């Protein structure tokens, strides 16, 4: 279980890492719906306080790029995607709340490339819980959280869920 302070520190760690490696250069943060956009917004606010560069912001819904339609009873409800800056030549940092199998990121890379050809794409995640099924590694990690494969990691964030916390539901016998 993580609380609001842990989450705030994780967001700060992300902003510090991004600042250190990309300081001063124009950046576009793209949050993956839903909750990745809220993490991205918080990181953006910290970076914007430096006032030293152009920052763009977008949100991406990856429902139409998922690879698991066959297994779903119902196709996921689509939310709006909003990429208000030119993707061609941009330095994009994809932001998500939890990195697990890597399939969401695979889908997000496909989606973003349908908007143009970025100069560079990096990945920032608030929580890395391990258990990758795709060759995807984050460039920036807020919190590394050891979990078991079948655990459920529930992230709640203020705007989406009314409070900041992370809960792990254990599905395997201890």
């Amino acid at each position, binding site marked *: 279980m993580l609380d609001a302070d842990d989450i705030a520190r994780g967001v700060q760690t992300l902003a510090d890492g991004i600042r250190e490696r990309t300081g001063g250069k124009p950046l576009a943060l793209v949050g993956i719906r839903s909750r990745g956009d809220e993490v991205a917004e918080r990181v953006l606010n910290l970076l914007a306080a430096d006032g030293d560069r152009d920052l763009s912001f977008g949100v991406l*819904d990856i*429902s*139409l*790029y998922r690879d698991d*339609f066959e297994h779903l*009873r*119902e*196709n996921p*409800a*689509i*939310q*709006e*995607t909003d990429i208000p800056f030119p993707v061609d030549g941009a330095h994009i940092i994809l932001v998500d709340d939890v990195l697990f199998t890597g399939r969401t990121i695979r889908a997000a890379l*496909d989606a973003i490339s*349908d*908007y*143009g050809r970025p100069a560079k794409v990096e990945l920032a995640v608030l929580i890395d819980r391990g258990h990758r099924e795709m060759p995807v590694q984050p460039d920036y990690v807020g919190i590394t959280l050891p979990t078991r494969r079948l655990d459920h990691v529930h992230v709640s964030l203020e705007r989406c869920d009314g409070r900041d916390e992370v809960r792990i539901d254990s599905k395997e016998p201890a």
Partner: protein
Amino acid sequence: MPRKDLLDIEALDRSEIEHLLDQSAPFKELFTRSVKKVPALKGKSVLMLFYEPSTRTHSSFEVAAKRLSADVTNFDVGHSSIAKGESVRETIETLQAMRTDYVIVRHMASGMPGTIARLTRASVVNAGDGAHAHPTQGLLDAFTLREKFPQTDGRRVLIVGDILHSRVARSTSLALRKLGVEVAYLGPGSLVPARLPDGVRRFTSYDEAMGWRPEVIYLLRVQMERQEAQYFPSLREYHRLYGVTEERLRILHDQGIYIMHPGPVNRGVELCDAVMDYEFSLINDQVENGIAVRMAVLYWLKPGGA
């Protein structure tokens, strides 16, 4: 919950209609990208089974399916064994063997898409059957209205023309009524049904209808064969009584009234030429929205029942 088939608007409740309209908006947004395609239905097959000629609806469904990355096969009447007398049953067995995932059906007989839906595992979308239903037209019209009036309850739409034989009038009225829109009909006495659907009112003259203060006027296409069958005296007479003439268009403009039409327009009959440049025409929006709504429908349906 998703359904296997979309056969008519009647089967849908308000929340399902609203869900489909909500889901159409993100599809429409894709059209502004240079890559208009998404991989959602990659590897799925869509069969276009059109027993009746259609250019607009056919191409709209085809574009929708292709923008979802599905493979589209045409089973056109004129070019296939359907013309050689193959029965519907045989056609269904063929498409079953082809492992088709979605079938888009247009047929002159009311109820035929429903029959096909019962006989196949594929999802069936009714693209117009007889005078019965044209559900995706109803949905795209509702979507187009809702873009202008996000709050649909109590809005007023006047539908003008051959209500009696029109599956568009039927499906569009149903969709609008389910969204709380007030609907009225205006048309030649011989072309408006004697029994009106629940809550729909009827006017006999253009002036009377305008007194009701509609916010949208929806013109139905005049089917020329109806005139030959003498449902109304002449096209010129029709235009004078029920058409949007230049004089009427000026009044509509002053009042900011929107115009809709399922296309293609018989110019000089339902609408005067000037309507092509009319500020409050939603006719092109309907075409664009049709693709988005059909994408949302295909994405929502789940093949595999039956």
